[in-house]
């Protein structure tokens, strides 16, 4: 029997160790697996490499993980924002390495990892400082940059609906990085708002097939990141 459900959120992240590369889904407040990130903070792993589009906001979720000094290196496209003080102060103090990747290249490198593609040529960033040190190649008269896969040891993902095989559906624009990150990690851990029986997600509307998911934990009423930031919540 395939049953990817785990009893609680602490168990879901119990084997994330020091030095791991963790892919964290979400774009801004949409799709952030905040409860899983907080469980990771409780777990105590340090020296992490985190891949996320942004750098965390306020003092919860990813920002809290950074603020607790657990992150050594971040790979993201846009860590700036009005409430990204934590990232800024750590970055400016030299306590955080940053690999800045154009958003589409970030998505495609994650997809490449999941799809077994060894590398790809993209026209994005050709001739810019973000292509420095990378192999360039002209294809059909257009400059391209060679980009390599980004693989995760773990992925933390928020979904709307899941079944025990790990099939997922996402809500609205919370889908964003979820489907590609699920494919790119050795162990994919999902917090889902609703668990449904097998077949509860019609086969034609499954967005992430269960083969890409390893653990499911139900978080029926996840926190609103926006509200928490407005309230000034901190974790822990």
């Amino acid at each position: 029997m395939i049953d990817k459900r785990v009893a609680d959120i602490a168990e879901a992240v119990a084997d994330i160790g020091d030095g791991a590369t963790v892919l964290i889904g979400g774009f801004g407040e949409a799709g952030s697996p905040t409860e899983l990130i907080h469980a990771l903070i409780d777990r105590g792993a340090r020296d992490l490499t985190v891949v996320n589009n942004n750098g965390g906001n306020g003092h919860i979720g990813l920002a809290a993980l950074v603020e607790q000094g657990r992150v050594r290196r971040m790979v993201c496209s846009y860590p700036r924002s009005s409430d990204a003080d934590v990232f800024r102060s750590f970055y400016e103090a030299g306590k955080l390495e940053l690999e800045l990747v154009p958003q589409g290249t970030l998505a495609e490198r994650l997809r490449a990892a999941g799809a077994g593609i060894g590398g790809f040529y993209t026209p994005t960033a050709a001739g810019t400082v973000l292509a420095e040190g990378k192999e360039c190649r002209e294809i059909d008269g257009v400059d391209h940059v060679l980009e390599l896969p980004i693989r995760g040891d773990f992925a933390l993902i928020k979904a709307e609906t899941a079944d025990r095989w790990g099939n997922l559906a996402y809500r609205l624009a919370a889908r964003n990085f979820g489907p590609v990150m699920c494919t790119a990690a050795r162990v994919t851990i999902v917090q889902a708002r609703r668990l449904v029986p097998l077949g509860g997600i019609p086969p034609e509307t499954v967005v992430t097939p269960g083969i890409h998911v390893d653990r499911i934990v139900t978080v029926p009423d996840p926190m609103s990141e926006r509200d928490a930031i407005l309230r000034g919540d901190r974790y822990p």
Partner: protein
Amino acid sequence: MNAARPAGLTRNQLAWRIAQDIPDGAYVNLGIGQPVLVGNYLPAGREIVLHSENGILGMGPEPAPEDADEELINAGKKPVTLLPGAALFNQAESFAIVRGRHLDICVLGAFQVAANGDLANWSTGAPGAVPGVGGAMDLAIGASRVFVMTDHCTRGGAPKIVGECSYPLTGRRVVTTIYTDLAVIDVTAGRLTVREMAEAVDRETLQGLTGAPLGWAPALRPLTAPRV
């Protein structure tokens, strides 16, 4: 210098002006910041499909605050709505749309634009500052036409249209048309051609505020916009 600054279009008028150049049926991405304003002035009667990098085609207007849903936001992380006919997709699919040249137009802000169409809009290169690029580099190379929406000069009065960008590039030879408070300027084959010019300036003044040689369209027209 500020005192001498010619009065051209307001920011909203500029957004209105750009909106007039977006045809019925176009697939368009409006960049974070100023360009989002263009969405407020899309001419009635045109069906224009707005793309958002985070995975949306068919964005509608901003919702009333009580209807905002934090799982339905645009690339600038502001709440949006969906029009009938909207589609949602993942990040790889969203940038396949961009990189794959499926968008007809994107509208981007700029720190600098060079006469050859080079665009710098993501970094001033200031050491130590947190950099952020987002989808700007993908949009710059991906859209069939790249419209730049910018003040003609910096607050300090320096030209933003230059011979060569001093800031780090977003993309090379990518800009199609520059829309400023003072002029609409087409970029073709490495040359700038003024198509429309605000009444507050003449050719000499505009050239003086521009860091690269300007050509003039045979049918040069006034750049005007209603009060919006």
